[in-house]
């Protein structure tokens, strides 16, 4: 057994840290250092910079624009971006539909879509959930009827993240009606901006941002050539897509950032003659969370190491989402508790009332309640573990 990073990896990390600090535009750097929250526009700006460097999609094959890095390098890359509090990139193109196209897309689809995903010229979003298909995704109802070379789409998607910024949406829709409900589903790419009959209506989250939209399709016409994989074979596409970047879903790097942030707030928060970070009770609470994060990190490292040896993520990876998202939420709760009365503030509180680095804590804390819901709720994860891994009987 060997858990050390190789000298090459250590060197790679040092270079990365230096590059990231230099590559950020000054205002972005200032906000990153101040612990500010970034919006989707900042993510797009940062993607352009990474794209110029050739680092927009490290995990893609080199011939499609990837970096050729190994799993560990990619992991270091993710972690250091998070530590530097760089804006997060939209995952829907780079992390989801892109890799799927690499694997299952036709040659035409690859050439048409991949370059613009990479450059950020086209922004993507995801259309999976429907009002009556949440945890039970396979019961989705959005219909695609064939009409000549096209499909005619009718129905509704919900929780389409940042659809108002998107040029394209990938959706699961129903093309067949027979057999089990997982059959008869197809995976389509849809021009959300220019297709008549599509209405996008962003709605406010309790975090105070318009992170999600509802999207209606009314006789929206989409060429059949925009289907990825076989007709009625969309469920396997969806499963393949879920497999990508499995190890990142635990949010380890993000939790690390929040815990550092909790310490920082505690350091800057006076209590009596000292600081909150001097309070042994609060220190122990942070310490417990940090210690738990070390445990989760090690579980993640085991998964990564297995991946580096070419093995599919083993059983241990399935727990990362479960315990990782719960820790992530706890880390945000520590920040809220550290803020004391400042936790009363909100995104629009004036700067004299709420320091910039605390501005979006409550909003994010609020929004991240969804971390245990999205990407397969933690209840669904427990179902998967108990059935697929432990082999417990169904009734």
């Amino acid at each position, binding site marked *: 057994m060997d858990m050390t990073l190789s000298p090459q990896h250590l060197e790679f990390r040092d270079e990365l840290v230096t590059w990231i600090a230099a590559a950020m535009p000054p205002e972005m750097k200032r906000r990153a250092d101040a612990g500010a929250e970034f919006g989707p526009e900042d993510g797009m700006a940062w993607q352009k910079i990474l794209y110029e460097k050739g680092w927009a999609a490290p995990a893609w094959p080199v011939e499609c624009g990837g970096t050729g890095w190994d799993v560990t390098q990619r992991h270091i890359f993710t972690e250091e971006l998070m530590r530097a509090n760089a804006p997060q990139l939209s995952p829907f193109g780079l992390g989801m539909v892109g890799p799927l196209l690499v694997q299952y897309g036709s040659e035409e689809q690859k050439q048409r879509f991949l370059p613009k995903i990479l450059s950020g010229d086209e922004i993507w979003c995801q259309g999976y*959930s429907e009002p*009556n298909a*949440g*945890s*039970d995704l396979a*019961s989705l109802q959005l219909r695609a009827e064939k009409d000549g070379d096209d499909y005619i789409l009718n129905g509704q998607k*919900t*929780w389409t993240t940042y659809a108002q910024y998107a040029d394209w949406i990938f959706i699961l829709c129903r093309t067949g009606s027979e057999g089990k409900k997982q059959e008869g589903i197809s995976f389509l790419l849809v021009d959300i901006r220019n297709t008549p009959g599509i209405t996008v209506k962003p*709605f*406010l*989250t*309790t*975090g*105070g941002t318009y992170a*999600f939209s509802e999207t209606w399709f009314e006789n929206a016409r989409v060429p059949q050539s925009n289907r990825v994989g076989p007709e009625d074979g969309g469920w396997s596409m969806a499963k393949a897509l879920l497999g990508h970047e499995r190890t990142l879903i635990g949010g380890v790097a993000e939790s690390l950032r929040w815990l550092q942030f909790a310490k920082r707030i505690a350091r800057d*928060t*006076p*209590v*009596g*003659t000292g600081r*909150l970070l001097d309070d042994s*009770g*609060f220190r122990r*609470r942070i310490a417990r969370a940090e210690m738990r994060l070390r445990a989760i990190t090690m579980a993640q490292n085991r998964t990564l190491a297995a991946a580096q040896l070419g093995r599919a993520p083993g059983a241990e990876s399935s727990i990362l989402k479960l315990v990782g998202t719960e820790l992530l*939420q706890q880390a945000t709760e520590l920040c*809220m*508790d550290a803020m*004391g*009365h*400042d*936790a*009363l*503030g*909100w995104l*629009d*509180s*004036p700067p*004299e*009332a*709420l320091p910039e680095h605390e501005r979006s804590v*409550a909003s994010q804390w*609020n*929004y991240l*309640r*969804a971390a*245990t*819901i999205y990407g397969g*709720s*933690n*209840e669904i994860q*427990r179902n998967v573990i108990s059935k697929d891994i432990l082999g417990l009987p169904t009734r």
Partner: protein
Amino acid sequence: MNFDLSEEQQMIVDSVAKFVANDSPVERFRKLRDSERGWDPEVWKRMGEFGWLGVAYPEEQGGFGGDFVDLALILEQLGKGLVPEPLLPSVVLAGGLISRLGTEAQVKAFLEPMVEGETSLALAYAERQSRYCLSDCLTTAEREDGSDLFTLNGEKTWVLNGAFADQIVVVARTEGQPQDERGLSLFIVDGNAARLTRTVVRGMDGHRTGLLNFDGVQVSADRLLGAQGEALSHLEWAMDRGAAAACAEGQGQIQELFDHSVAYLKERKQFGVPIGSFQALQHRAADMFAEVELCKSTMILAAILVDSEDPEERMAEISAAKLQLSDGGWFVQKNAIQLLGGIGVTDEQDEGLLFKRLRVLQGLFGDADHHVERFQTREGFDAHLRVP
């Protein structure tokens, strides 16, 4: 022991519940949170007419001679509708102090108009550095020899209703060093006083607080509330009432979130069945129910004990109640959001708004850590070792 509501209490509860259902459902709050003030003086006046604002004050002060339990029952019902009128800062905090410490003239001038819903009040105690420590007060009040005027300098943060209150009870130091226990005094300052700057801050819960800057504000000596330099124990008393009130109002939100969750479990179908038929969710709901019941129990306990003659027992039970609000309530609210799925993080649904207001109440008047610390540092924690 008897924890049944009296006939009168049941009448109060019914009438407030009816008001919330008919006149002030969450929808009203949703609209008001984007208005300037965040609440409606007309509704406030009606509350005065209903007698809700004076329920817990003695009759000779224009009140109805009820007790804190009556007030708590009102707050609980209002909490269900997220009714935004400022009962907590005005009736519980500032009003409570004026009722307790005020001269006849002060009661007449400042409390009675509030009881009638003509004016509203606020209590300015927190400062940028103070966290939950009441004696950590940098704001000063000085009086030159022979003068009838005190001069206030300093800053008060997160003053509930502080930006719009007509009168503000302000904690200021008249002597001693920043964290001395002695030397704190209370002043009733006019909201429109010269050299007082008020910045409106909209909070996470959509309510307004005020950032108050006192830059040499002059206050006449007849606005000194209670004995000079002796405010701390009264402030502690007021904070305990605030905590009990937070438990009461929060109970409204906890109960709503729980009831909505149970209803959703019965009605939402996935995999062809109501999700409430899944045993894992049933058991979660059972655990939530247990916490709701414990919250209800400690909320009642706190409301009964705010007027206890034994301050140590009062503080112990109120800390226990506040901890239950923070920990037990948190268990209920986070699981409600989890069970409700996307609905719980959608602003246009009520649940997320209940969730945020509840979090604000959990943080006010001391969070869980603060109350655990207070509980274990009191003398009785060691004295009650009855086993030899």
